[in-house]
Protein backbone atom coordinates (compact mmCIF):
# COMPACT_ATOMS: atom_id res chain seq x y z
CA UNK A 1 0.00 0.00 0.00
CA UNK A 2 2.66 2.48 1.06
CA UNK A 3 4.75 1.24 -1.81
CA UNK A 4 1.99 1.94 -4.23
CA UNK A 5 1.47 5.39 -2.79
CA UNK A 6 5.13 6.09 -3.34
CA UNK A 7 4.88 4.67 -6.86
CA UNK A 8 7.44 1.96 -5.99
CA UNK A 9 10.09 4.65 -5.81
CA UNK A 10 11.27 3.88 -2.30
CA UNK A 11 13.82 6.17 -0.66
CA UNK A 12 16.50 3.46 -1.03
CA UNK A 13 18.35 4.57 2.06
CA UNK A 14 17.36 4.10 5.68
CA UNK A 15 18.66 7.46 6.69
CA UNK A 16 16.72 9.12 3.91
CA UNK A 17 13.58 7.24 4.83
CA UNK A 18 13.94 8.35 8.42
CA UNK A 19 14.53 11.94 7.38
CA UNK A 20 11.47 11.87 5.20
CA UNK A 21 9.32 10.44 7.96
CA UNK A 22 10.60 13.09 10.34
CA UNK A 23 9.78 15.84 7.88
CA UNK A 24 6.30 14.54 7.15
CA UNK A 25 5.46 14.01 10.82
CA UNK A 26 6.99 17.35 11.70
CA UNK A 27 4.86 19.11 9.13
CA UNK A 28 1.75 17.16 10.02
CA UNK A 29 1.95 18.14 13.69
CA UNK A 30 3.76 21.43 13.26
CA UNK A 31 1.04 23.56 14.89
CA UNK A 32 1.25 21.43 18.01
CA UNK A 33 4.96 20.76 18.20
CA UNK A 34 6.11 24.25 17.27
CA UNK A 35 3.55 26.68 18.60
CA UNK A 36 3.50 30.26 17.47
CA UNK A 37 2.61 32.26 14.42
CA UNK A 38 6.12 32.43 13.07
CA UNK A 39 6.71 28.70 13.27
CA UNK A 40 3.44 28.04 11.51
CA UNK A 41 4.31 30.51 8.76
CA UNK A 42 7.62 28.78 8.26
CA UNK A 43 5.93 25.39 8.08
CA UNK A 44 3.44 26.69 5.54
CA UNK A 45 6.23 28.15 3.47
CA UNK A 46 7.96 24.79 3.57
CA UNK A 47 4.82 23.15 2.19
CA UNK A 48 4.56 25.66 -0.64
CA UNK A 49 8.21 25.32 -1.52
CA UNK A 50 8.08 21.54 -1.51
CA UNK A 51 5.46 21.65 -4.22
CA UNK A 52 7.18 24.42 -6.14
CA UNK A 53 10.59 22.79 -6.05
CA UNK A 54 9.25 19.37 -6.93
CA UNK A 55 7.49 20.88 -9.93
CA UNK A 56 10.75 22.48 -11.01
CA UNK A 57 12.55 19.19 -10.54
CA UNK A 58 10.10 17.65 -12.97
CA UNK A 59 11.36 20.10 -15.54
CA UNK A 60 15.03 20.35 -14.66
CA UNK A 61 15.93 17.09 -13.01
CA UNK A 62 13.85 14.81 -15.14
CA UNK A 63 13.58 16.61 -18.45
CA UNK A 64 16.82 18.55 -18.43
CA UNK A 65 15.20 21.86 -19.42
CA UNK A 66 16.84 24.82 -17.69
CA UNK A 67 14.22 27.50 -17.39
CA UNK A 68 14.32 30.65 -15.33
CA UNK A 69 10.70 31.31 -16.05
CA UNK A 70 9.39 28.85 -13.52
CA UNK A 71 8.53 31.51 -10.97
CA UNK A 72 6.43 33.07 -13.69
CA UNK A 73 3.98 30.19 -13.33
CA UNK A 74 4.27 30.35 -9.57
CA UNK A 75 3.34 34.00 -9.83
CA UNK A 76 0.47 33.31 -12.17
CA UNK A 77 -1.03 30.94 -9.61
CA UNK A 78 -0.61 33.47 -6.82
CA UNK A 79 -1.97 36.32 -8.90
CA UNK A 80 -4.88 34.16 -10.02
CA UNK A 81 -6.08 33.83 -6.44
CA UNK A 82 -5.15 37.40 -5.53
CA UNK A 83 -6.85 39.07 -8.46
CA UNK A 84 -9.97 36.93 -8.25
CA UNK A 85 -10.29 37.50 -4.51
CA UNK A 86 -9.78 41.23 -4.93
CA UNK A 87 -12.25 41.56 -7.76
CA UNK A 88 -14.88 38.99 -6.89
CA UNK A 89 -14.72 39.14 -3.12
CA UNK A 90 -13.94 36.61 -0.45
CA UNK A 91 -15.83 33.55 -1.66
CA UNK A 92 -14.98 30.00 -2.53
CA UNK A 93 -16.27 30.62 -6.01
CA UNK A 94 -13.79 33.44 -6.50
CA UNK A 95 -10.95 31.18 -5.44
CA UNK A 96 -11.99 28.52 -7.90
CA UNK A 97 -12.34 31.03 -10.70
CA UNK A 98 -8.92 32.46 -9.90
CA UNK A 99 -7.31 29.05 -9.77
CA UNK A 100 -8.98 27.92 -12.96
CA UNK A 101 -8.03 31.08 -14.79
CA UNK A 102 -4.44 30.82 -13.61
CA UNK A 103 -4.20 27.21 -14.73
CA UNK A 104 -5.46 28.11 -18.18
CA UNK A 105 -3.01 30.99 -18.54
CA UNK A 106 -0.15 28.78 -17.38
CA UNK A 107 -1.20 26.03 -19.74
CA UNK A 108 -1.06 28.31 -22.74
CA UNK A 109 2.19 29.99 -21.76
CA UNK A 110 3.96 26.78 -20.81
CA UNK A 111 2.86 25.18 -24.03
CA UNK A 112 4.62 27.95 -25.89
CA UNK A 113 7.66 27.62 -23.65
CA UNK A 114 7.79 23.87 -24.18
CA UNK A 115 7.64 24.16 -27.93
CA UNK A 116 10.19 26.94 -27.92
CA UNK A 117 12.64 24.98 -25.82
CA UNK A 118 13.21 22.69 -28.77
CA UNK A 119 14.04 25.43 -31.17
CA UNK A 120 17.08 26.96 -29.53
CA UNK A 121 20.09 25.69 -27.68
CA UNK A 122 20.00 25.05 -23.96
CA UNK A 123 21.98 28.09 -22.81
CA UNK A 124 20.10 30.36 -25.12
CA UNK A 125 16.86 28.99 -23.88
CA UNK A 126 17.92 29.57 -20.29
CA UNK A 127 18.88 33.15 -21.06
CA UNK A 128 15.72 33.83 -22.98
CA UNK A 129 13.57 32.56 -20.13
CA UNK A 130 15.59 34.76 -17.81
CA UNK A 131 14.72 37.77 -19.92
CA UNK A 132 11.11 36.70 -20.31
CA UNK A 133 10.74 36.21 -16.56
CA UNK A 134 12.11 39.65 -15.83
CA UNK A 135 9.83 41.14 -18.46
CA UNK A 136 6.87 39.36 -16.90
CA UNK A 137 7.77 40.75 -13.52
CA UNK A 138 8.00 44.23 -14.98
CA UNK A 139 4.67 43.72 -16.66
CA UNK A 140 3.09 42.64 -13.38
CA UNK A 141 4.32 45.77 -11.66
CA UNK A 142 3.27 47.96 -14.58
CA UNK A 143 -0.30 46.73 -14.84
CA UNK A 144 -1.05 48.28 -11.49
CA UNK A 145 -4.79 48.53 -12.10
CA UNK A 146 -5.05 44.76 -12.17
CA UNK A 147 -2.10 43.55 -10.13
CA UNK A 148 -1.73 46.36 -7.62
CA UNK A 149 1.63 47.23 -9.12
CA UNK A 150 4.71 47.01 -6.97
CA UNK A 151 2.65 47.31 -3.80
CA UNK A 152 0.79 44.12 -4.67
CA UNK A 153 -2.64 43.02 -3.54
CA UNK A 154 -3.85 42.35 -0.04
CA UNK A 155 -7.13 40.48 -0.06
CA UNK A 156 -9.60 38.51 2.02
CA UNK A 157 -10.51 34.85 1.66
CA UNK A 158 -13.53 32.91 2.90
CA UNK A 159 -14.08 33.26 6.63
CA UNK A 160 -13.48 29.55 7.27
CA UNK A 161 -9.76 29.75 6.44
CA UNK A 162 -9.10 33.22 7.84
CA UNK A 163 -7.38 33.73 11.20
CA UNK A 164 -10.36 35.52 12.62
CA UNK A 165 -12.59 32.45 12.33
CA UNK A 166 -12.62 30.39 15.50
CA UNK A 167 -14.44 27.11 15.40
CA UNK A 168 -13.88 26.34 19.04
CA UNK A 169 -13.30 28.70 21.93
CA UNK A 170 -11.31 26.08 23.78
CA UNK A 171 -7.73 25.72 22.63
CA UNK A 172 -6.81 22.14 21.81
CA UNK A 173 -3.44 21.05 23.22
CA UNK A 174 -2.65 24.69 23.70
CA UNK A 175 -3.37 25.59 20.12
CA UNK A 176 -6.31 27.76 19.26
CA UNK A 177 -8.55 26.12 16.70
CA UNK A 178 -8.97 28.88 14.19
CA UNK A 179 -9.16 29.43 10.46
CA UNK A 180 -5.42 29.74 10.19
CA UNK A 181 -5.01 26.20 11.50
CA UNK A 182 -7.59 24.93 9.07
CA UNK A 183 -5.83 26.75 6.26
CA UNK A 184 -2.57 25.11 7.25
CA UNK A 185 -4.06 21.67 7.09
CA UNK A 186 -5.65 22.49 3.81
CA UNK A 187 -2.18 23.31 2.46
CA UNK A 188 -0.72 20.22 4.06
CA UNK A 189 -3.20 17.91 2.36
CA UNK A 190 -2.72 19.71 -0.93
CA UNK A 191 1.05 19.36 -0.71
CA UNK A 192 0.89 15.66 0.11
CA UNK A 193 -1.48 14.95 -2.74
CA UNK A 194 0.53 16.98 -5.24
CA UNK A 195 3.89 15.49 -4.28
CA UNK A 196 2.53 11.95 -4.50
CA UNK A 197 1.05 12.79 -7.89
CA UNK A 198 4.39 14.06 -9.14
CA UNK A 199 6.17 11.04 -7.76
CA UNK A 200 3.79 8.92 -9.69
CA UNK A 201 4.36 10.85 -12.88
CA UNK A 202 8.11 10.61 -12.77
CA UNK A 203 7.94 6.91 -12.11
CA UNK A 204 5.53 6.24 -14.91
CA UNK A 205 6.83 5.10 -18.27
CA UNK A 206 6.46 8.72 -19.28
CA UNK A 207 8.87 9.81 -16.56
CA UNK A 208 11.47 7.32 -17.68
CA UNK A 209 11.31 8.56 -21.20
CA UNK A 210 11.87 12.08 -19.92
CA UNK A 211 15.10 10.93 -18.33
CA UNK A 212 16.15 9.30 -21.55
CA UNK A 213 15.51 12.55 -23.39
CA UNK A 214 17.53 14.45 -20.83
CA UNK A 215 20.43 12.06 -21.31
CA UNK A 216 20.44 11.87 -25.06
CA UNK A 217 17.69 13.51 -26.96
CA UNK A 218 18.98 12.43 -30.31
CA UNK A 219 18.95 8.76 -29.43
CA UNK A 220 15.59 8.97 -27.71
CA UNK A 221 14.10 10.21 -30.93
CA UNK A 222 15.94 7.51 -32.83
CA UNK A 223 14.50 4.68 -30.77
CA UNK A 224 11.03 5.99 -31.41
CA UNK A 225 10.04 8.65 -28.90
CA UNK A 226 8.60 11.94 -30.13
CA UNK A 227 10.78 14.34 -28.19
CA UNK A 228 8.57 17.35 -28.93
CA UNK A 229 5.54 15.71 -27.41
CA UNK A 230 7.32 14.59 -24.29
CA UNK A 231 9.12 17.82 -23.65
CA UNK A 232 6.05 19.92 -24.15
CA UNK A 233 3.98 17.70 -21.92
CA UNK A 234 6.61 17.88 -19.20
CA UNK A 235 6.84 21.65 -19.48
CA UNK A 236 3.08 22.01 -19.22
CA UNK A 237 2.77 19.63 -16.28
CA UNK A 238 5.52 21.30 -14.35
CA UNK A 239 4.01 24.71 -15.00
CA UNK A 240 0.62 23.56 -13.77
CA UNK A 241 2.08 22.21 -10.55
CA UNK A 242 3.98 25.46 -10.05
CA UNK A 243 0.73 27.35 -10.57
CA UNK A 244 -0.89 25.28 -7.84
CA UNK A 245 2.03 26.03 -5.54
CA UNK A 246 1.54 29.72 -6.29
CA UNK A 247 -2.11 29.46 -5.39
CA UNK A 248 -1.17 27.79 -2.12
CA UNK A 249 1.16 30.66 -1.33
CA UNK A 250 -1.46 33.28 -2.02
CA UNK A 251 -4.04 31.41 0.04
CA UNK A 252 -1.68 31.29 2.98
CA UNK A 253 -0.41 34.85 2.79
CA UNK A 254 -3.62 36.51 1.67
CA UNK A 255 -1.23 38.85 -0.09
CA UNK A 256 0.63 38.77 -3.37
CA UNK A 257 3.02 41.11 -5.12
CA UNK A 258 5.75 40.91 -7.73
CA UNK A 259 8.56 40.38 -5.22
CA UNK A 260 6.64 37.77 -3.31
CA UNK A 261 6.06 35.32 -6.12
CA UNK A 262 7.90 36.51 -9.23
CA UNK A 263 11.31 37.62 -8.08
CA UNK A 264 14.50 36.15 -9.47
CA UNK A 265 15.56 35.54 -5.89
CA UNK A 266 12.87 32.90 -5.52
CA UNK A 267 14.00 31.33 -8.75
CA UNK A 268 17.51 31.05 -7.42
CA UNK A 269 16.30 29.64 -4.12
CA UNK A 270 14.36 27.01 -6.01
CA UNK A 271 17.37 26.15 -8.10
CA UNK A 272 19.52 25.86 -5.03
CA UNK A 273 17.02 23.65 -3.26
CA UNK A 274 16.80 21.32 -6.23
CA UNK A 275 20.55 21.01 -6.30
CA UNK A 276 21.08 20.61 -2.55
CA UNK A 277 18.19 18.20 -2.31
CA UNK A 278 19.30 16.12 -5.25
CA UNK A 279 18.21 16.63 -8.81
CA UNK A 280 15.79 14.22 -10.40
CA UNK A 281 14.62 12.67 -7.16
CA UNK A 282 11.45 14.51 -6.00
CA UNK A 283 12.43 13.44 -2.47
CA UNK A 284 15.23 15.93 -2.81
CA UNK A 285 12.63 18.65 -3.10
CA UNK A 286 11.06 17.59 0.18
CA UNK A 287 14.29 17.43 2.15
CA UNK A 288 15.89 20.40 0.41
CA UNK A 289 12.91 22.70 0.78
CA UNK A 290 12.52 21.86 4.45
CA UNK A 291 16.15 22.46 5.30
CA UNK A 292 16.52 25.54 3.17
CA UNK A 293 13.36 27.33 4.24
CA UNK A 294 14.09 26.67 7.89
CA UNK A 295 17.68 27.81 7.50
CA UNK A 296 16.60 30.92 5.64
CA UNK A 297 13.94 31.78 8.21
CA UNK A 298 16.06 31.32 11.28
CA UNK A 299 19.46 32.38 9.97
CA UNK A 300 19.04 35.88 11.31
CA UNK A 301 18.08 34.64 14.76
CA UNK A 302 21.05 32.33 14.73
CA UNK A 303 23.38 35.12 13.72
CA UNK A 304 22.07 37.27 16.53
CA UNK A 305 23.38 34.67 18.94
CA UNK A 306 26.63 34.38 17.03
CA UNK A 307 27.37 38.07 16.88
CA UNK A 308 26.68 38.66 20.53
CA UNK A 309 28.97 35.75 21.33
CA UNK A 310 31.66 37.30 19.14
CA UNK A 311 31.15 40.84 20.37
CA UNK A 312 34.77 41.00 21.54
CA UNK A 313 36.03 40.67 17.99
CA UNK A 314 34.67 43.67 16.11
CA UNK A 315 35.38 42.41 12.59
CA UNK A 316 33.90 39.00 13.30
CA UNK A 317 30.83 40.45 14.87
CA UNK A 318 30.45 42.73 11.85
CA UNK A 319 30.40 39.65 9.66
CA UNK A 320 28.16 37.75 12.05
CA UNK A 321 25.76 40.65 12.38
CA UNK A 322 22.21 39.62 11.54
CA UNK A 323 22.22 42.39 8.95
CA UNK A 324 24.63 40.28 6.97
CA UNK A 325 22.54 37.12 6.96
CA UNK A 326 22.61 37.10 3.16
CA UNK A 327 26.36 36.75 3.31
CA UNK A 328 25.93 33.47 5.07
CA UNK A 329 23.23 32.43 2.71
CA UNK A 330 25.75 33.00 -0.07
CA UNK A 331 28.27 30.91 1.79
CA UNK A 332 25.60 28.23 2.06
CA UNK A 333 25.19 28.33 -1.73
CA UNK A 334 28.88 27.85 -2.28
CA UNK A 335 29.35 25.17 0.32
CA UNK A 336 26.37 23.16 -0.79
CA UNK A 337 27.70 23.02 -4.32
CA UNK A 338 31.07 21.96 -2.94
CA UNK A 339 29.84 19.32 -0.55
CA UNK A 340 26.66 18.02 -2.09
CA UNK A 341 27.51 17.64 -5.74
CA UNK A 342 24.81 15.00 -6.10
CA UNK A 343 22.55 16.49 -3.50
CA UNK A 344 21.58 15.16 -0.12
CA UNK A 345 19.46 12.40 -1.57
CA UNK A 346 22.18 11.37 -3.98
CA UNK A 347 24.68 11.32 -1.17
CA UNK A 348 22.51 9.27 1.16
CA UNK A 349 21.75 6.79 -1.57
CA UNK A 350 25.40 6.32 -2.47
CA UNK A 351 26.12 5.80 1.19
CA UNK A 352 23.40 3.19 1.39
CA UNK A 353 25.00 1.39 -1.54
CA UNK A 354 28.57 1.57 -0.32
Amino acid at each position, binding site marked *: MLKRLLSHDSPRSHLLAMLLITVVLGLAFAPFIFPGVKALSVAAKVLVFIVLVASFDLLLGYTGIVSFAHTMFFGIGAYGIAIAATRLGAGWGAMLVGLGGALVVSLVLSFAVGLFSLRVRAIFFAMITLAVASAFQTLASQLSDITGGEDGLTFKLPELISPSFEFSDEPFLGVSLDGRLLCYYFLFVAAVVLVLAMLRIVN*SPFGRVLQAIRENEFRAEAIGYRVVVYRTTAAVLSALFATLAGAMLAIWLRYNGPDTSLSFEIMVDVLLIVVIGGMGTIYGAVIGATLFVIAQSYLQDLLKLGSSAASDLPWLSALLSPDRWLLWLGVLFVLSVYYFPTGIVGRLRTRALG
Partner: protein
Amino acid sequence: MLETKDLTIRFGGHVAVNAVSCAFAPGTLTAIVGPNGAGKTTYFNLISGQLKASAGTVSLDGKSLSGMSPSARTHAGLGRAFQLTNLFPNLTVLENVRLAVQATRAGAHRHGLNLWSIWSDHRALTRRADELLAQINLKAKEHATVASLPHGDQRKLEVALLMALEPKVFMFDEPTAGMNAAEAPVILDLIRQLKKDKSKTILLVEHKMDVVRELADRIIVLHNGTLVADGDPAEVIASPVVQEAYLGVAPKEAA
Protein backbone atom coordinates in the same frame (compact mmCIF):
# COMPACT_ATOMS: atom_id res chain seq x y z
CA MET B 1 11.33 -4.07 -49.15
CA LEU B 2 13.29 -0.92 -48.36
CA GLU B 3 13.82 1.34 -51.32
CA THR B 4 15.58 4.61 -51.96
CA LYS B 5 15.01 6.57 -55.14
CA ASP B 6 17.45 9.26 -56.25
CA LEU B 7 18.27 9.94 -52.64
CA THR B 8 20.45 13.05 -52.49
CA ILE B 9 21.82 15.42 -49.89
CA ARG B 10 23.98 18.47 -50.28
CA PHE B 11 25.90 20.26 -47.57
CA GLY B 12 26.54 23.64 -49.09
CA GLY B 13 28.24 22.79 -52.32
CA HIS B 14 29.30 19.32 -51.22
CA VAL B 15 27.09 16.48 -52.43
CA ALA B 16 27.50 13.82 -49.74
CA VAL B 17 24.97 11.38 -51.18
CA ASN B 18 24.26 11.69 -54.85
CA ALA B 19 21.06 10.26 -56.38
CA VAL B 20 21.38 6.83 -54.84
CA SER B 21 18.63 4.46 -55.97
CA CYS B 22 18.67 1.04 -54.47
CA ALA B 23 16.29 -1.58 -53.12
CA PHE B 24 16.96 -3.93 -50.24
CA ALA B 25 14.93 -7.11 -50.07
CA PRO B 26 14.05 -9.02 -46.91
CA GLY B 27 16.22 -12.01 -46.28
CA THR B 28 19.39 -10.43 -47.62
CA LEU B 29 22.32 -8.86 -45.91
CA THR B 30 23.71 -6.05 -47.96
CA ALA B 31 27.13 -4.70 -47.08
CA ILE B 32 27.79 -1.08 -47.88
CA VAL B 33 31.44 -0.29 -48.41
CA GLY B 34 33.36 2.68 -49.61
CA PRO B 35 36.21 4.96 -48.61
CA ASN B 36 36.02 7.19 -45.58
CA GLY B 37 33.66 10.03 -46.27
CA ALA B 38 32.01 8.22 -49.14
CA GLY B 39 28.59 8.93 -47.67
CA LYS B 40 27.72 5.62 -46.03
CA THR B 41 26.72 7.03 -42.66
CA THR B 42 25.00 9.90 -44.37
CA TYR B 43 23.04 7.44 -46.48
CA PHE B 44 21.91 5.74 -43.26
CA ASN B 45 21.00 9.09 -41.77
CA LEU B 46 18.83 9.84 -44.77
CA ILE B 47 17.05 6.50 -44.54
CA SER B 48 16.43 6.71 -40.82
CA GLY B 49 15.44 10.35 -40.98
CA GLN B 50 18.24 11.98 -38.97
CA LEU B 51 18.95 14.11 -42.01
CA LYS B 52 16.45 15.57 -44.41
CA ALA B 53 17.07 14.66 -48.02
CA SER B 54 17.65 17.47 -50.51
CA ALA B 55 15.97 15.28 -53.10
CA GLY B 56 14.72 11.75 -53.57
CA THR B 57 12.53 9.42 -51.55
CA VAL B 58 12.72 6.56 -49.09
CA SER B 59 9.99 3.95 -48.89
CA LEU B 60 9.38 0.81 -46.90
CA ASP B 61 7.09 -1.89 -48.29
CA GLY B 62 5.74 0.59 -50.76
CA LYS B 63 4.87 3.17 -48.12
CA SER B 64 6.75 6.44 -48.42
CA LEU B 65 8.75 7.46 -45.36
CA SER B 66 9.78 10.85 -46.66
CA GLY B 67 8.86 13.67 -44.35
CA MET B 68 8.48 11.40 -41.34
CA SER B 69 10.40 12.11 -38.15
CA PRO B 70 13.05 9.62 -37.02
CA SER B 71 10.73 8.34 -34.31
CA ALA B 72 7.94 7.74 -36.78
CA ARG B 73 10.31 5.84 -39.04
CA THR B 74 11.34 3.69 -36.14
CA HIS B 75 7.72 2.82 -35.59
CA ALA B 76 7.39 2.06 -39.27
CA GLY B 77 10.03 -0.62 -38.85
CA LEU B 78 13.47 0.90 -39.34
CA GLY B 79 16.12 0.19 -36.74
CA ARG B 80 19.51 1.77 -36.51
CA ALA B 81 22.73 1.37 -34.57
CA PHE B 82 25.24 4.19 -34.68
CA GLN B 83 28.84 4.39 -35.80
CA LEU B 84 29.91 6.53 -32.88
CA THR B 85 28.43 5.11 -29.74
CA ASN B 86 25.34 7.01 -28.84
CA LEU B 87 23.68 5.78 -25.64
CA PHE B 88 22.12 7.16 -22.47
CA PRO B 89 25.37 7.53 -20.56
CA ASN B 90 24.13 8.06 -17.01
CA LEU B 91 21.42 5.43 -17.03
CA THR B 92 22.17 1.81 -16.26
CA VAL B 93 22.71 -0.80 -18.91
CA LEU B 94 19.36 -2.37 -18.09
CA GLU B 95 17.48 0.89 -18.34
CA ASN B 96 19.04 1.63 -21.69
CA VAL B 97 17.72 -1.57 -23.12
CA ARG B 98 14.41 -1.35 -21.31
CA LEU B 99 13.75 2.06 -22.81
CA ALA B 100 14.22 0.61 -26.26
CA VAL B 101 11.92 -2.28 -25.44
CA GLN B 102 9.30 0.10 -24.13
CA ALA B 103 9.46 2.15 -27.29
CA THR B 104 8.29 -0.80 -29.35
CA ARG B 105 5.55 -2.11 -27.10
CA ALA B 106 1.87 -1.61 -27.79
CA GLY B 107 2.32 1.70 -29.53
CA ALA B 108 4.88 3.78 -27.75
CA HIS B 109 2.69 6.84 -27.99
CA ARG B 110 0.00 5.48 -25.76
CA HIS B 111 2.39 3.79 -23.40
CA GLY B 112 4.88 6.56 -23.25
CA LEU B 113 2.40 9.25 -22.51
CA ASN B 114 0.91 7.08 -19.84
CA LEU B 115 1.53 9.29 -16.86
CA TRP B 116 -0.13 7.17 -14.31
CA SER B 117 0.78 3.49 -14.52
CA ILE B 118 3.84 2.47 -12.60
CA TRP B 119 7.04 1.51 -14.29
CA SER B 120 7.85 -1.47 -12.14
CA ASP B 121 4.53 -3.04 -13.10
CA HIS B 122 5.95 -3.51 -16.53
CA ARG B 123 7.72 -6.70 -15.72
CA ALA B 124 7.38 -7.92 -19.24
CA LEU B 125 9.62 -5.12 -20.42
CA THR B 126 12.29 -6.00 -17.92
CA ARG B 127 12.13 -9.66 -18.83
CA ARG B 128 12.67 -8.91 -22.49
CA ALA B 129 15.53 -6.54 -21.70
CA ASP B 130 17.17 -9.20 -19.58
CA GLU B 131 16.99 -11.68 -22.42
CA LEU B 132 18.73 -9.28 -24.74
CA LEU B 133 21.47 -8.55 -22.23
CA ALA B 134 22.05 -12.25 -21.83
CA GLN B 135 22.51 -12.57 -25.58
CA ILE B 136 25.34 -10.07 -25.64
CA ASN B 137 27.01 -11.22 -22.42
CA LEU B 138 26.25 -8.05 -20.53
CA LYS B 139 23.88 -9.44 -17.92
CA ALA B 140 26.56 -9.25 -15.28
CA LYS B 141 26.90 -5.50 -15.76
CA GLU B 142 23.22 -4.64 -15.98
CA HIS B 143 23.33 -2.21 -13.10
CA ALA B 144 26.51 -0.44 -14.15
CA THR B 145 26.09 2.98 -15.71
CA VAL B 146 26.92 3.05 -19.37
CA ALA B 147 29.57 5.75 -18.95
CA SER B 148 31.79 3.41 -16.97
CA LEU B 149 31.77 0.60 -19.54
CA PRO B 150 34.84 0.00 -21.68
CA HIS B 151 34.50 0.89 -25.31
CA GLY B 152 33.86 -2.66 -26.45
CA ASP B 153 30.92 -3.17 -24.11
CA GLN B 154 29.38 0.07 -25.25
CA ARG B 155 29.51 -1.16 -28.81
CA LYS B 156 27.69 -4.31 -27.75
CA LEU B 157 25.04 -2.34 -25.97
CA GLU B 158 24.60 -0.19 -29.03
CA VAL B 159 23.67 -3.36 -30.93
CA ALA B 160 21.41 -4.58 -28.11
CA LEU B 161 19.33 -1.43 -28.37
CA LEU B 162 18.83 -2.07 -32.03
CA MET B 163 17.79 -5.67 -31.36
CA ALA B 164 15.32 -4.49 -28.73
CA LEU B 165 13.49 -2.44 -31.33
CA GLU B 166 12.68 -5.61 -33.30
CA PRO B 167 12.57 -3.71 -36.58
CA LYS B 168 12.00 -5.05 -40.07
CA VAL B 169 15.15 -3.36 -41.30
CA PHE B 170 18.41 -3.52 -39.32
CA MET B 171 21.07 -0.97 -40.07
CA PHE B 172 24.50 -1.60 -38.58
CA ASP B 173 27.19 1.07 -38.90
CA GLU B 174 30.58 -0.53 -38.23
CA PRO B 175 29.25 -2.56 -35.33
CA THR B 176 32.60 -4.07 -34.42
CA ALA B 177 34.83 -1.02 -34.74
CA GLY B 178 37.24 -0.98 -31.82
CA MET B 179 36.19 -4.41 -30.59
CA ASN B 180 38.80 -7.01 -30.14
CA ALA B 181 38.95 -10.29 -31.94
CA ALA B 182 37.61 -12.21 -29.00
CA GLU B 183 34.53 -10.05 -28.48
CA ALA B 184 33.60 -9.17 -32.03
CA PRO B 185 32.27 -12.67 -32.73
CA VAL B 186 29.49 -12.10 -30.19
CA ILE B 187 28.15 -9.37 -32.42
CA LEU B 188 28.80 -11.25 -35.60
CA ASP B 189 26.96 -14.26 -34.20
CA LEU B 190 23.98 -12.08 -33.48
CA ILE B 191 23.99 -10.87 -37.05
CA ARG B 192 24.25 -14.44 -38.30
CA GLN B 193 21.24 -15.34 -36.16
CA LEU B 194 19.30 -12.49 -37.64
CA LYS B 195 20.16 -13.56 -41.14
CA LYS B 196 18.28 -16.78 -40.53
CA ASP B 197 15.04 -14.87 -40.19
CA LYS B 198 14.12 -14.39 -43.80
CA SER B 199 11.71 -11.54 -43.10
CA LYS B 200 14.46 -9.21 -41.98
CA THR B 201 16.38 -6.82 -44.17
CA ILE B 202 19.93 -6.16 -42.98
CA LEU B 203 22.25 -3.34 -44.00
CA LEU B 204 25.83 -3.39 -42.78
CA VAL B 205 28.52 -0.76 -43.13
CA GLU B 206 31.88 -2.33 -42.45
CA HIS B 207 35.51 -1.73 -43.30
CA LYS B 208 36.78 -5.14 -42.28
CA MET B 209 36.78 -7.03 -45.54
CA ASP B 210 36.96 -10.46 -43.96
CA VAL B 211 33.75 -9.77 -42.11
CA VAL B 212 32.09 -8.44 -45.24
CA ARG B 213 33.21 -11.39 -47.26
CA GLU B 214 31.81 -13.83 -44.78
CA LEU B 215 28.45 -12.22 -44.05
CA ALA B 216 27.34 -10.32 -47.11
CA ASP B 217 24.89 -11.65 -49.67
CA ARG B 218 25.41 -8.55 -51.72
CA ILE B 219 27.74 -5.56 -51.68
CA ILE B 220 27.09 -2.03 -52.80
CA VAL B 221 29.89 0.44 -53.10
CA LEU B 222 29.59 4.18 -52.47
CA HIS B 223 32.25 6.53 -53.68
CA ASN B 224 32.00 10.30 -53.32
CA GLY B 225 28.33 9.87 -52.59
CA THR B 226 27.58 7.93 -55.74
CA LEU B 227 26.65 4.27 -56.07
CA VAL B 228 29.47 2.84 -58.16
CA ALA B 229 29.06 -0.91 -57.86
CA ASP B 230 26.38 -3.32 -56.79
CA GLY B 231 26.28 -7.11 -56.85
CA ASP B 232 27.73 -10.36 -55.73
CA PRO B 233 30.46 -9.96 -53.08
CA ALA B 234 33.27 -11.73 -54.85
CA GLU B 235 32.65 -9.88 -58.11
CA VAL B 236 32.38 -6.49 -56.49
CA ILE B 237 35.52 -6.92 -54.45
CA ALA B 238 37.40 -7.93 -57.52
CA SER B 239 36.15 -5.01 -59.59
CA PRO B 240 38.77 -2.39 -60.42
CA VAL B 241 36.84 0.49 -58.87
CA VAL B 242 36.87 -1.19 -55.49
CA GLN B 243 40.43 -2.30 -55.84
CA GLU B 244 41.61 1.20 -56.55
CA ALA B 245 39.30 3.55 -54.72
CA TYR B 246 38.72 1.52 -51.65
CA LEU B 247 41.42 -1.00 -51.06
CA GLY B 248 44.11 1.30 -52.31
CA VAL B 249 47.28 0.76 -54.21
CA ALA B 250 48.20 -2.36 -52.32
CA PRO B 251 45.67 -4.92 -53.56
CA LYS B 252 47.32 -7.71 -51.58
CA GLU B 253 44.74 -7.05 -48.84
CA ALA B 254 41.92 -8.01 -51.16
CA ALA B 255 43.28 -11.30 -52.20
